[in-house]
Protein backbone atom coordinates (compact mmCIF):
# COMPACT_ATOMS: atom_id res chain seq x y z
CA UNK A 1 0.00 0.00 0.00
CA UNK A 2 1.10 3.55 -0.70
CA UNK A 3 2.69 5.05 2.40
CA UNK A 4 0.92 8.34 1.85
CA UNK A 5 -2.48 6.68 1.92
CA UNK A 6 -1.53 5.14 5.22
CA UNK A 7 -0.58 8.55 6.59
CA UNK A 8 -3.94 9.98 5.56
CA UNK A 9 -5.76 7.08 7.17
CA UNK A 10 -3.85 7.55 10.40
CA UNK A 11 -4.63 11.24 10.45
CA UNK A 12 -8.33 10.49 9.97
CA UNK A 13 -8.34 7.75 12.57
CA UNK A 14 -6.81 10.06 15.17
CA UNK A 15 -9.32 12.74 14.23
CA UNK A 16 -12.17 10.26 14.68
CA UNK A 17 -10.79 9.16 18.04
CA UNK A 18 -10.73 12.77 19.15
CA UNK A 19 -14.15 13.78 17.88
CA UNK A 20 -15.90 10.67 19.10
CA UNK A 21 -14.12 9.98 22.38
CA UNK A 22 -12.09 13.12 23.17
CA UNK A 23 -8.80 11.31 23.33
CA UNK A 24 -6.38 13.55 21.53
CA UNK A 25 -3.41 11.71 20.03
CA UNK A 26 -3.16 14.01 17.04
CA UNK A 27 0.03 15.64 18.25
CA UNK A 28 1.75 12.63 19.69
CA UNK A 29 5.14 11.85 18.18
CA UNK A 30 3.87 10.37 14.95
CA UNK A 31 6.51 7.73 14.26
CA UNK A 32 5.82 5.71 17.38
CA UNK A 33 2.05 6.20 17.15
CA UNK A 34 2.24 4.75 13.67
CA UNK A 35 4.14 1.74 14.92
CA UNK A 36 1.63 1.10 17.67
CA UNK A 37 -1.37 1.66 15.42
CA UNK A 38 0.00 -0.94 13.02
CA UNK A 39 0.14 -3.42 15.89
CA UNK A 40 -3.39 -2.49 16.95
CA UNK A 41 -4.70 -2.89 13.42
CA UNK A 42 -3.08 -6.28 12.96
CA UNK A 43 -3.83 -7.70 16.37
CA UNK A 44 -7.40 -6.37 16.51
CA UNK A 45 -7.96 -8.06 13.18
CA UNK A 46 -8.58 -5.13 10.84
CA UNK A 47 -7.34 -5.05 7.26
CA UNK A 48 -6.68 -1.30 7.22
CA UNK A 49 -6.65 1.78 9.41
CA UNK A 50 -9.89 2.85 7.74
CA UNK A 51 -11.53 -0.39 8.83
CA UNK A 52 -10.19 0.10 12.34
CA UNK A 53 -11.61 3.62 12.30
CA UNK A 54 -15.03 2.37 11.34
CA UNK A 55 -14.94 -0.32 14.00
CA UNK A 56 -13.92 2.22 16.59
CA UNK A 57 -16.55 4.81 15.65
CA UNK A 58 -19.42 2.35 15.87
CA UNK A 59 -18.35 0.28 18.83
CA UNK A 60 -17.17 2.07 21.99
CA UNK A 61 -16.24 -1.32 23.46
CA UNK A 62 -13.18 -1.25 21.20
CA UNK A 63 -11.82 1.92 22.76
CA UNK A 64 -10.09 0.44 25.84
CA UNK A 65 -8.18 -2.05 23.71
CA UNK A 66 -7.03 0.65 21.34
CA UNK A 67 -6.00 2.86 24.26
CA UNK A 68 -3.83 0.06 25.54
CA UNK A 69 -1.98 0.12 22.25
CA UNK A 70 -1.74 3.88 22.04
CA UNK A 71 -0.49 4.44 25.56
CA UNK A 72 2.66 2.76 26.70
CA UNK A 73 2.56 1.18 30.13
CA UNK A 74 6.24 0.63 30.68
CA UNK A 75 7.41 1.55 34.15
CA UNK A 76 9.39 0.43 37.17
CA UNK A 77 9.52 1.31 40.84
CA UNK A 78 12.36 3.74 41.52
CA UNK A 79 13.25 3.72 37.83
CA UNK A 80 16.52 5.69 37.52
CA UNK A 81 17.49 5.46 41.21
CA UNK A 82 19.65 8.59 40.92
CA UNK A 83 16.50 10.61 40.22
CA UNK A 84 14.87 9.45 43.43
CA UNK A 85 18.11 9.99 45.30
CA UNK A 86 18.20 13.59 44.08
CA UNK A 87 14.57 14.11 45.14
CA UNK A 88 15.38 12.64 48.53
CA UNK A 89 18.58 14.52 49.14
CA UNK A 90 18.03 17.81 47.38
CA UNK A 91 14.27 18.45 47.07
CA UNK A 92 12.89 16.93 50.26
CA UNK A 93 14.88 19.28 52.54
CA UNK A 94 12.95 22.15 50.92
CA UNK A 95 9.62 20.33 51.14
CA UNK A 96 10.14 19.77 54.87
CA UNK A 97 9.67 23.48 55.47
CA UNK A 98 5.99 23.30 54.42
CA UNK A 99 3.25 22.27 56.88
CA UNK A 100 1.28 20.56 54.14
CA UNK A 101 2.27 19.30 50.71
CA UNK A 102 0.73 18.39 47.40
CA UNK A 103 2.53 16.08 45.01
CA UNK A 104 1.33 15.23 41.51
CA UNK A 105 2.46 12.11 39.68
CA UNK A 106 1.35 12.88 36.13
CA UNK A 107 1.15 9.91 33.75
CA UNK A 108 1.41 7.47 36.65
CA UNK A 109 0.84 4.36 34.53
CA UNK A 110 0.17 1.36 36.78
CA UNK A 111 1.43 3.10 39.89
CA UNK A 112 5.11 2.16 40.08
CA UNK A 113 6.27 5.76 40.26
CA UNK A 114 3.49 6.70 42.67
CA UNK A 115 4.33 3.97 45.19
CA UNK A 116 7.99 4.88 44.91
CA UNK A 117 7.15 8.42 46.00
CA UNK A 118 4.79 7.38 48.79
CA UNK A 119 7.37 4.96 50.20
CA UNK A 120 10.09 7.59 50.02
CA UNK A 121 7.87 10.17 51.70
CA UNK A 122 6.99 7.66 54.41
CA UNK A 123 10.68 6.95 54.98
CA UNK A 124 11.31 10.67 55.23
CA UNK A 125 8.41 11.27 57.61
CA UNK A 126 6.48 13.45 55.16
CA UNK A 127 3.71 11.11 54.07
CA UNK A 128 1.18 12.24 56.67
CA UNK A 129 1.29 15.87 55.61
CA UNK A 130 1.20 15.10 51.90
CA UNK A 131 -1.64 14.62 49.45
CA UNK A 132 -0.63 12.69 46.33
CA UNK A 133 -2.49 13.09 43.06
CA UNK A 134 -1.95 10.26 40.61
CA UNK A 135 -3.27 10.85 37.11
CA UNK A 136 -3.26 9.12 33.76
CA UNK A 137 -5.45 8.92 30.67
CA UNK A 138 -5.62 5.15 30.59
CA UNK A 139 -8.43 3.97 32.90
CA UNK A 140 -7.11 0.40 33.04
CA UNK A 141 -3.71 1.67 34.12
CA UNK A 142 -5.32 3.84 36.81
CA UNK A 143 -7.28 0.82 38.08
CA UNK A 144 -4.08 -1.18 38.24
CA UNK A 145 -2.39 1.68 40.08
CA UNK A 146 -5.23 1.72 42.62
CA UNK A 147 -4.75 -2.02 43.20
CA UNK A 148 -0.97 -1.90 43.64
CA UNK A 149 -0.36 -5.50 42.69
CA UNK A 150 2.66 -6.52 40.62
CA UNK A 151 4.07 -9.83 39.45
CA UNK A 152 6.61 -11.08 41.98
CA UNK A 153 9.25 -11.48 39.32
CA UNK A 154 9.44 -7.70 38.97
CA UNK A 155 10.23 -7.22 42.65
CA UNK A 156 13.95 -7.92 42.54
CA UNK A 157 14.49 -5.07 40.08
CA UNK A 158 12.27 -2.79 42.21
CA UNK A 159 14.19 -3.78 45.34
CA UNK A 160 17.56 -3.11 43.79
CA UNK A 161 16.39 0.27 42.45
CA UNK A 162 14.98 1.18 45.85
CA UNK A 163 18.26 0.37 47.54
CA UNK A 164 20.25 2.42 45.02
CA UNK A 165 17.88 5.34 45.47
CA UNK A 166 18.97 5.65 49.10
CA UNK A 167 16.00 3.74 50.51
CA UNK A 168 16.02 3.68 54.30
CA UNK A 169 13.79 0.66 54.77
CA UNK A 170 13.33 -2.69 53.12
CA UNK A 171 10.92 -2.77 50.21
CA UNK A 172 9.54 -6.03 51.58
CA UNK A 173 8.06 -4.01 54.48
CA UNK A 174 5.48 -2.67 52.04
CA UNK A 175 4.09 -5.72 50.29
CA UNK A 176 3.15 -9.31 50.95
CA UNK A 177 3.72 -12.14 48.50
CA UNK A 178 0.58 -13.87 47.36
CA UNK A 179 0.45 -16.53 44.62
CA UNK A 180 3.20 -15.09 42.49
CA UNK A 181 2.11 -11.53 43.09
CA UNK A 182 3.35 -8.74 45.32
CA UNK A 183 0.40 -6.99 46.93
CA UNK A 184 1.38 -3.55 48.16
CA UNK A 185 -0.05 -2.38 51.44
CA UNK A 186 -3.25 -0.43 51.09
CA UNK A 187 -2.14 2.07 53.70
CA UNK A 188 0.19 3.40 51.00
CA UNK A 189 -2.95 4.72 49.32
CA UNK A 190 -4.33 6.55 52.36
CA UNK A 191 -3.06 9.87 51.09
CA UNK A 192 -3.59 9.27 47.35
CA UNK A 193 -6.25 10.60 45.01
CA UNK A 194 -6.45 8.85 41.63
CA UNK A 195 -7.90 10.67 38.70
CA UNK A 196 -8.37 10.45 34.98
CA UNK A 197 -6.61 13.50 33.60
CA UNK A 198 -5.01 14.29 30.26
CA UNK A 199 -2.04 16.59 29.98
CA UNK A 200 -3.14 17.62 26.51
CA UNK A 201 -6.85 18.26 26.94
CA UNK A 202 -7.52 18.86 30.65
CA UNK A 203 -6.98 21.87 32.89
CA UNK A 204 -4.51 23.02 35.48
CA UNK A 205 -4.60 20.85 38.58
CA UNK A 206 -3.97 22.60 41.90
CA UNK A 207 -1.24 24.32 43.86
CA UNK A 208 1.41 21.62 43.69
CA UNK A 209 4.71 21.63 45.54
CA UNK A 210 6.17 18.87 43.41
CA UNK A 211 5.16 17.47 40.04
CA UNK A 212 6.84 14.33 38.75
CA UNK A 213 6.05 13.60 35.13
CA UNK A 214 8.44 11.06 33.72
CA UNK A 215 8.56 9.52 30.28
CA UNK A 216 5.28 11.00 29.16
CA UNK A 217 6.51 14.10 27.33
CA UNK A 218 8.68 12.03 24.97
CA UNK A 219 5.46 10.69 23.46
CA UNK A 220 4.30 14.18 22.50
CA UNK A 221 5.37 16.43 19.67
CA UNK A 222 6.75 19.83 20.60
CA UNK A 223 3.34 21.48 20.55
CA UNK A 224 1.83 19.01 23.03
CA UNK A 225 5.00 19.11 25.10
CA UNK A 226 4.62 22.84 25.43
CA UNK A 227 0.98 22.55 26.35
CA UNK A 228 1.80 20.08 29.10
CA UNK A 229 4.70 22.15 30.39
CA UNK A 230 2.43 25.21 30.42
CA UNK A 231 0.03 23.16 32.51
CA UNK A 232 2.80 22.32 34.97
CA UNK A 233 3.78 25.95 35.11
CA UNK A 234 0.23 26.90 36.00
CA UNK A 235 -0.16 24.04 38.50
CA UNK A 236 2.97 24.65 40.55
CA UNK A 237 3.04 26.67 43.72
CA UNK A 238 5.65 29.38 44.05
CA UNK A 239 9.10 27.71 44.06
CA UNK A 240 7.52 24.34 43.36
CA UNK A 241 9.54 21.54 41.76
CA UNK A 242 9.15 19.74 38.46
CA UNK A 243 10.87 16.42 37.76
CA UNK A 244 11.01 14.94 34.24
CA UNK A 245 12.28 11.71 32.73
CA UNK A 246 16.00 11.28 32.17
CA UNK A 247 15.73 12.00 28.43
CA UNK A 248 13.27 14.88 28.77
CA UNK A 249 14.02 18.53 29.33
CA UNK A 250 12.62 22.02 29.07
CA UNK A 251 15.28 22.72 26.47
CA UNK A 252 12.88 23.31 23.57
CA UNK A 253 10.01 24.77 25.56
CA UNK A 254 8.68 28.29 25.36
CA UNK A 255 8.08 28.00 29.12
CA UNK A 256 11.75 27.30 29.86
CA UNK A 257 12.18 30.80 31.30
CA UNK A 258 9.62 30.12 34.02
CA UNK A 259 11.87 27.44 35.51
CA UNK A 260 15.41 27.18 36.76
CA UNK A 261 17.40 23.96 36.64
CA UNK A 262 17.56 22.61 40.19
CA UNK A 263 19.39 19.30 39.73
CA UNK A 264 20.48 19.54 36.14
CA UNK A 265 21.57 15.95 35.55
CA UNK A 266 18.33 14.56 36.94
CA UNK A 267 16.05 16.94 35.00
CA UNK A 268 14.66 18.49 38.17
CA UNK A 269 13.54 22.09 37.80
CA UNK A 270 12.23 24.74 40.16
CA UNK A 271 9.50 27.22 39.35
CA UNK A 272 10.71 30.82 39.61
CA UNK A 273 8.97 33.19 41.93
CA UNK A 274 6.21 34.94 40.02
Amino acid at each position, binding site marked *: *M*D*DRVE*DIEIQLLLEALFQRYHYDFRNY*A*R*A*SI*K*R*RLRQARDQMGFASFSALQEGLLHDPARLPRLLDYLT*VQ*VSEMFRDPSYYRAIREKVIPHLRTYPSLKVWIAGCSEGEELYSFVIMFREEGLEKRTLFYATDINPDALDAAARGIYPLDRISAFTSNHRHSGGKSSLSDYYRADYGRAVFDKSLRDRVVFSDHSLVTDAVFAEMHLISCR*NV*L*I*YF*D*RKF*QDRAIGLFRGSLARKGFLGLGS*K*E*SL*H*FSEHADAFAPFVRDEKIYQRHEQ
Partner: protein
Amino acid sequence: MIASAQANGASPTPVTEAVVIGASAGAVQALARILPALPADYPLPVLVVVHVPADRDNMLVPHFAATCRIAVREAEDKEAIRAGTVYFAPSDYHMLVEPDRTISLSLDPLVHYSRPSIDVLFDSAADAYGPALAGVVLTGANDDGAAGLKAVADAGGVALAEDPATAYSPAMPRAALDACPAARSMSLDQIASFLAALGGARPS
Protein backbone atom coordinates in the same frame (compact mmCIF):
# COMPACT_ATOMS: atom_id res chain seq x y z
CA MET B 1 4.54 0.59 -1.60
CA ILE B 2 6.44 3.35 -3.33
CA ALA B 3 7.99 1.87 -6.45
CA SER B 4 11.65 1.22 -5.92
CA ALA B 5 13.31 4.22 -7.50
CA GLN B 6 16.54 2.29 -7.56
CA ALA B 7 15.22 -0.45 -9.77
CA ASN B 8 13.26 1.95 -11.89
CA GLY B 9 15.68 3.29 -14.49
CA ALA B 10 13.27 6.01 -15.62
CA SER B 11 13.25 8.00 -12.38
CA PRO B 12 16.29 10.09 -11.45
CA THR B 13 18.64 8.48 -8.95
CA PRO B 14 17.67 9.88 -5.57
CA VAL B 15 20.29 11.61 -3.51
CA THR B 16 20.88 10.01 -0.15
CA GLU B 17 20.06 12.35 2.71
CA ALA B 18 20.67 10.19 5.76
CA VAL B 19 22.40 7.01 6.91
CA VAL B 20 21.11 4.58 9.55
CA ILE B 21 23.35 1.90 11.05
CA GLY B 22 22.52 -0.97 13.37
CA ALA B 23 25.03 -3.14 15.21
CA SER B 24 25.09 -5.56 18.11
CA ALA B 25 27.78 -8.01 19.28
CA GLY B 26 31.13 -6.69 18.02
CA ALA B 27 29.63 -3.26 17.32
CA VAL B 28 32.41 -1.10 18.71
CA GLN B 29 35.15 -2.68 16.61
CA ALA B 30 33.00 -2.63 13.46
CA LEU B 31 31.95 0.99 13.93
CA ALA B 32 35.58 1.90 14.57
CA ARG B 33 36.34 0.92 10.97
CA ILE B 34 33.47 3.00 9.59
CA LEU B 35 32.71 6.15 11.56
CA PRO B 36 36.27 7.57 11.82
CA ALA B 37 36.55 7.14 8.03
CA LEU B 38 33.84 9.73 7.40
CA PRO B 39 35.36 13.05 6.28
CA ALA B 40 35.12 16.20 8.37
CA ASP B 41 32.76 17.80 5.86
CA TYR B 42 30.47 14.78 5.64
CA PRO B 43 27.14 16.10 4.37
CA LEU B 44 24.79 13.51 5.92
CA PRO B 45 23.47 12.69 9.36
CA VAL B 46 24.28 9.18 10.62
CA LEU B 47 21.88 7.60 13.11
CA VAL B 48 23.20 4.59 14.98
CA VAL B 49 21.57 1.98 17.16
CA VAL B 50 23.86 -0.30 19.13
CA HIS B 51 22.50 -2.90 21.51
CA VAL B 52 23.96 -1.93 24.87
CA PRO B 53 22.84 -3.50 28.15
CA ALA B 54 20.41 -1.09 29.83
CA ASP B 55 22.28 -1.01 33.10
CA ARG B 56 25.64 -0.26 31.52
CA ASP B 57 26.76 3.33 31.03
CA ASN B 58 26.69 4.21 27.39
CA MET B 59 30.35 4.92 26.57
CA LEU B 60 29.84 5.01 22.81
CA VAL B 61 29.55 8.77 22.52
CA PRO B 62 32.77 9.73 24.34
CA HIS B 63 34.60 6.90 22.60
CA PHE B 64 33.62 7.89 19.07
CA ALA B 65 33.67 11.62 19.71
CA ALA B 66 37.39 11.17 20.36
CA THR B 67 38.05 9.23 17.16
CA CYS B 68 35.68 10.76 14.57
CA ARG B 69 36.16 13.81 12.41
CA ILE B 70 32.46 14.70 12.50
CA ALA B 71 30.30 15.56 15.53
CA VAL B 72 29.15 12.65 17.68
CA ARG B 73 26.34 12.97 20.19
CA GLU B 74 23.69 11.10 22.08
CA ALA B 75 20.33 11.75 20.45
CA GLU B 76 18.02 14.08 22.34
CA ASP B 77 14.26 13.83 22.15
CA LYS B 78 12.73 16.21 19.54
CA GLU B 79 16.04 17.51 18.26
CA ALA B 80 16.34 18.39 14.59
CA ILE B 81 18.57 16.03 12.66
CA ARG B 82 21.64 17.83 11.38
CA ALA B 83 24.09 16.94 8.65
CA GLY B 84 27.60 15.87 9.52
CA THR B 85 26.55 14.46 12.88
CA VAL B 86 26.51 10.94 14.29
CA TYR B 87 23.58 10.30 16.65
CA PHE B 88 23.69 7.36 19.01
CA ALA B 89 20.46 6.12 20.57
CA PRO B 90 20.66 6.43 24.37
CA SER B 91 20.65 3.08 26.14
CA ASP B 92 17.23 1.80 27.15
CA TYR B 93 15.33 4.08 24.73
CA HIS B 94 14.18 3.46 21.20
CA MET B 95 15.24 6.13 18.72
CA LEU B 96 12.82 7.06 15.93
CA VAL B 97 12.87 9.53 13.06
CA GLU B 98 9.74 11.68 12.75
CA PRO B 99 8.31 12.67 9.37
CA ASP B 100 9.59 16.23 9.98
CA ARG B 101 13.07 14.77 10.44
CA THR B 102 13.40 15.29 14.10
CA ILE B 103 14.31 12.56 16.57
CA SER B 104 11.87 11.00 19.02
CA LEU B 105 12.85 8.73 21.85
CA SER B 106 10.45 6.18 23.29
CA LEU B 107 10.17 3.68 26.09
CA ASP B 108 7.98 1.32 24.11
CA PRO B 109 8.44 -2.35 24.94
CA LEU B 110 11.56 -4.18 23.79
CA VAL B 111 11.64 -5.28 20.15
CA HIS B 112 13.73 -8.41 19.49
CA TYR B 113 14.62 -8.27 23.19
CA SER B 114 16.24 -4.93 22.54
CA ARG B 115 15.74 -1.30 23.38
CA PRO B 116 16.98 0.51 21.41
CA SER B 117 15.94 -1.64 18.49
CA ILE B 118 17.40 -1.40 15.00
CA ASP B 119 14.06 -2.22 13.36
CA VAL B 120 12.35 0.65 15.16
CA LEU B 121 14.95 3.14 13.90
CA PHE B 122 15.07 1.74 10.35
CA ASP B 123 11.26 1.52 9.91
CA SER B 124 10.70 5.07 11.06
CA ALA B 125 13.63 6.42 9.04
CA ALA B 126 12.38 4.61 5.92
CA ASP B 127 9.02 6.34 6.43
CA ALA B 128 10.65 9.72 6.89
CA TYR B 129 13.32 9.58 4.18
CA GLY B 130 11.87 7.14 1.66
CA PRO B 131 14.41 6.55 -1.14
CA ALA B 132 16.82 9.11 0.31
CA LEU B 133 18.05 6.72 2.99
CA ALA B 134 20.94 4.29 3.27
CA GLY B 135 20.62 1.50 5.86
CA VAL B 136 23.50 -0.65 7.10
CA VAL B 137 23.24 -3.78 9.25
CA LEU B 138 26.51 -4.77 10.90
CA THR B 139 27.70 -7.61 13.10
CA GLY B 140 25.36 -9.11 15.69
CA ALA B 141 24.02 -12.30 17.17
CA ASN B 142 20.27 -11.80 16.69
CA ASP B 143 17.92 -10.79 13.89
CA ASP B 144 17.06 -7.23 14.79
CA GLY B 145 17.45 -5.00 11.73
CA ALA B 146 16.34 -7.58 9.17
CA ALA B 147 12.78 -6.30 8.86
CA GLY B 148 14.07 -2.76 9.12
CA LEU B 149 16.56 -3.17 6.29
CA LYS B 150 13.80 -4.59 4.14
CA ALA B 151 11.69 -1.52 4.93
CA VAL B 152 14.57 0.70 3.82
CA ALA B 153 14.90 -1.19 0.52
CA ASP B 154 11.13 -1.30 -0.02
CA ALA B 155 11.01 2.47 0.29
CA GLY B 156 13.63 2.68 -2.44
CA GLY B 157 16.63 3.34 -0.21
CA VAL B 158 20.07 1.73 -0.30
CA ALA B 159 20.44 -1.44 1.78
CA LEU B 160 23.82 -2.76 2.92
CA ALA B 161 24.83 -5.57 5.23
CA GLU B 162 28.23 -6.53 6.52
CA ASP B 163 29.54 -9.65 4.80
CA PRO B 164 28.61 -12.50 7.18
CA ALA B 165 31.76 -14.37 6.12
CA THR B 166 33.96 -11.76 7.77
CA ALA B 167 31.61 -10.34 10.39
CA TYR B 168 32.56 -10.82 14.03
CA SER B 169 29.09 -12.23 14.59
CA PRO B 170 27.39 -13.23 11.32
CA ALA B 171 23.79 -13.94 12.44
CA MET B 172 22.46 -10.41 12.20
CA PRO B 173 23.81 -9.43 8.76
CA ARG B 174 22.84 -12.89 7.49
CA ALA B 175 19.26 -12.47 8.72
CA ALA B 176 19.20 -9.05 7.06
CA LEU B 177 20.45 -10.42 3.74
CA ASP B 178 17.89 -13.23 3.91
CA ALA B 179 15.02 -10.85 4.63
CA CYS B 180 16.17 -8.29 2.11
CA PRO B 181 17.50 -9.80 -1.11
CA ALA B 182 18.07 -6.31 -2.50
CA ALA B 183 20.72 -5.67 0.13
CA ARG B 184 24.38 -5.69 -0.87
CA SER B 185 26.89 -7.58 1.19
CA MET B 186 30.17 -5.72 1.79
CA SER B 187 33.27 -5.86 3.96
CA LEU B 188 33.64 -3.20 6.63
CA ASP B 189 36.18 -1.31 4.55
CA GLN B 190 33.90 -1.36 1.51
CA ILE B 191 31.05 -0.08 3.66
CA ALA B 192 33.30 2.66 4.99
CA SER B 193 34.29 3.91 1.55
CA PHE B 194 30.76 3.52 0.20
CA LEU B 195 29.34 5.67 3.00
CA ALA B 196 32.17 8.19 2.80
CA ALA B 197 31.38 8.69 -0.88
CA LEU B 198 27.64 9.17 -0.31
CA GLY B 199 26.00 12.53 -0.15
CA GLY B 200 26.45 13.78 -3.65
CA ALA B 201 24.96 11.76 -6.47
CA ARG B 202 24.61 8.17 -5.39
CA PRO B 203 27.58 6.02 -6.40
CA SER B 204 26.57 2.91 -8.26
